[in-house]
C-alpha cells in the first residue's frame, strides 16, 4: 500500500490486491465517505460509499447498489464470496513460483480444526501420491488426508487424540 499525490492534487492511497487470483491496483482518496473518486487498474470509478456496521458497506455505483460484507480474507457481495489478499508489490517476485511443482518437501496441513483419530504412516515410509496418511475427525465426520506427492514421510507432527487447528502442518513428505 502506498501513498502519493493523485490527479487533481487530491492525496490518494494505492492498494494492490489479488482478488480471485487476479492482481488489481485500486487508487482511493485518503478521505473516504459519501461520494469518492477511485480507479481500478487505471479505470476511473465513482462510488457513493456508506459503512453501515463494522465490515458492512453499501456501495452505489451508477445507481447500482451493492451490499458488501467483509468476511475475513473475503468480501461477500450479492450472496457470493470473493477471496482477496492485500499484496505488497515489492515482495511479489519472491512469493511467485514457490509452492508449485513436486520437488522438495511438501507438508500435509489440517484442512479444518479437529482431532486425529488415525495415523496411517510412520516416519520413513515410502508413500504414493494420493495415499491416505491420516484420518481427522470433526463434527461427527471423519476425513482422510492424503499424501501430496510420491516420496518419503519425513516428519509426523501429530499423534492419535491430538487436537489440531486449521492449517497446522501434520506430516511432511519429501
Amino acid at each position, binding site marked *: 500500500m502506498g501513498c502519493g499525490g493523485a490527479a487533481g492534487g487530491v492525496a490518494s492511497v494505492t492498494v494492490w490486491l489479488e482478488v480471485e487470483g487476479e492482481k488489481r491496483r485500486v487508487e482511493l482518496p485518503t478521505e*473516504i*465517505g*459519501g461520494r469518492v473518486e477511485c480507479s481500478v487498474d487505471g479505470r476511473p470509478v465513482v462510488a*457513493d*460509499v*456508506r*459503512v*453501515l*456496521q*463494522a*465490515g458492512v458497506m*453499501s456501495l*452505489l455505483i451508477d*445507481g*447500482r*447498489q451493492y*451490499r458488501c460484507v*467483509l468476511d*475475513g480474507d473475503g468480501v461477500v457481495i450479492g450472496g457470493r464470496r470473493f477471496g482477496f489478499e492485500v499484496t505488497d508489490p515489492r515482495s511479489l517476485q519472491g512469493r511467485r513460483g514457490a509452492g508449485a511443482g513436486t520437488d522438495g518437501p511438501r507438508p500435509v496441513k489440517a484442512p479444518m480444526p479437529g482431532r486425529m483419530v488415525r495415523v496411517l504412516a510412520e516416519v520413513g515410509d515410502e508413500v504414493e501420491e494420493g495415499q491416505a496418511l491420516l484420518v481427522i475427525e470433526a463434527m461427527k465426520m471423519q476425513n482422510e488426508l492424503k499424501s501430496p506427492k510420491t516420496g518419503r514421510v519425513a516428519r509426523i507432527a501429530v499423534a492419535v487424540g491430538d487436537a489440531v487447528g486449521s492449517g497446522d502442518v501434520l506430516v511432511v513428505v519429501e
Partner: protein
Amino acid sequence: MLIANRGEIALRVIRACREVGVATVAVYSDADRGALHVLHADEAYRLGPAPAAESYLRGDLILDVARRTGADAIHPGYGFLSENAEFAEACAAAGVTFIGPPASAMRVLGSKTRARQAADAAGMPRVPGSVTGLADVAEAVRVAAGIGYPVMLKAAAGGGGKGMRAVSRAEDLAAAFTAASSEAERSFGSGEVYLEKLVERPRHIEIQLMADEHGSCVYLGERECSVQRRHQKVIEEAPSAVVGEDLRQRMGEAAVRLALSAGYVNAGTVEFLVDDKENFYFLEMNTRLQVEHPVTEMVTGLDLVHLQLRVAMGEPLPLTQKDVRLRGHAIECRIYAEDPENHFFPSPGLITRLIQPSGPGIREDCAVYEGWNVPLDYDPMLSKLVAFGETREQAIDRMLRALDEYVIGGIKTNIGLFRRILMDEDFRAARIDTGYLERLLAEPDAPVEEDVPEDVVALAAALFAASARRETAAVADLSEESRWAVAGRREGLRL
C-alpha cells in the same frame, strides 16, 4: 419496480419483488442513505434532504427516478404518497403502473365524507350522522339533536385523531365545533368537519379486501385493532375474538359491495366500528396496503404484496372467496422508538445493541440494525413483531416469549408496554375497545413480580462497569479486524 417509501414497508416490498424476480429501485433521503431498504435494493437514488416534504413526498422527483431507471411500476407502501390521487394520476400520465387503486376510486373512497356517501349508496350500515361536511354550528346543533348525544365531531380530511372532539352535551357543541374545525384546518388544510353519533366502547374491526381489474373482489377476513393510543393502532390481531363466521360474512360482503361500487382495484381495507351487540358501522376506507397486513397473511397463508403485484399486472385474482380459509391466530406489535415511561416521547438515535427474537411462529418485519441511527424525521416505528399461534392464547404467550428475547439498546422503545398489555387480564379475555389502552395507562403500573434479585442486577452492572475500565489500557494491541470494527463504530459508522 420503484419503491416510493422507506422503512420496513419498503424492505417488505423489495423482498416480495426479489421473490418474483423483479428488479428493485429504492429512493432515499439524506437521512436514509444507510437504511436497510437501500441496502437490499438493486438500485438506489437520492431524492433530497431528510424532511419528507423534500424527499418522500416529492412525487415529481420520484417519477424522475422512475423515468431515468426505466421502472415501469411504483409501489407507494403506506403513508407518504400512497393515498395521493394526484400522484396516482401523474404515474398513469407517465406510463408507470401505480400499485394501488385507480385515482378515481381513491378520490371517491379517500375523502371521509365522499366515502360515507358511497357507503350509503352501497347499503352499508354506518354511524348515524351527517353525510357531508357541516356548514356551520347551527347545522351541527340540528344534526346532533336529531341523532342524540353523545356525538363525535370529525375532520373530513382527517386521520390520526386530529380534528376530533367528543361532545356529550348540547351546550358544549359550539366550542367543540370551532376547536375541531380549526385543528382540522391547521392539520389538513381543510376545516371541513362532520358529526356522527358516538358509539360507546366500540371495537375497531376492519376487513381486508383484494380486488382485481376483472370485477372480482374477495375479503380476507378481519383484523381487530382496538388497542389504540391517541387513535393510533398499537396492537392488531386476526381474527377478532368477537367475530364469528356469520358476522365476518356480513361485514366482508358489505365491504366488497362498497369496493365494487367504486370500481376499486388492488388491496384495500374497510374500517368499521363494532358495538357490543354485533352491530357494525362503516368508518372509512384505506385505499392502500396497511401497516397491519401481516396478521392477515399469517391466518390466510397468503402474501398480500405478491397478490398486489399480480393484480397490478392485470392478472385475475388466483382465488375465489371460498378458497379463503382462516387458520390460527396472529398478533402484531408495533415496536416504536418512544418512551412509555416518559409521556411516550419519541426516542430517535443510535441503536447500540439489537438482539432480535425468532423461532417458531415468529415473523419480524424490521428495518433497523445494530449501528443504525434512527432518524428523527419520520414515524417512530422500528419493527413489526408478529406472532402466530393455533389459538389466541398461544399467539399471546408466544409474543410474550419473543418480547422477552428482544433487546433494543441505545434508544427507548415500547417493548415493556406490550408486555404489560399482553399480561393484562382484560386483554387476555379480549375485553377490549378503542378506549381500552387509555384506561389501562391511566391505572398505576402494577409492580411486576420481582424475579431478578437486586444483588444479581448490582453484580451484572459492576461486572460491565469493571470490564469497561479494565480494558481501557489494553486497546493498543488489537487485531486488524478489531481495529476495523472499532473504527467503524467510532466514526459514526462512516469510513
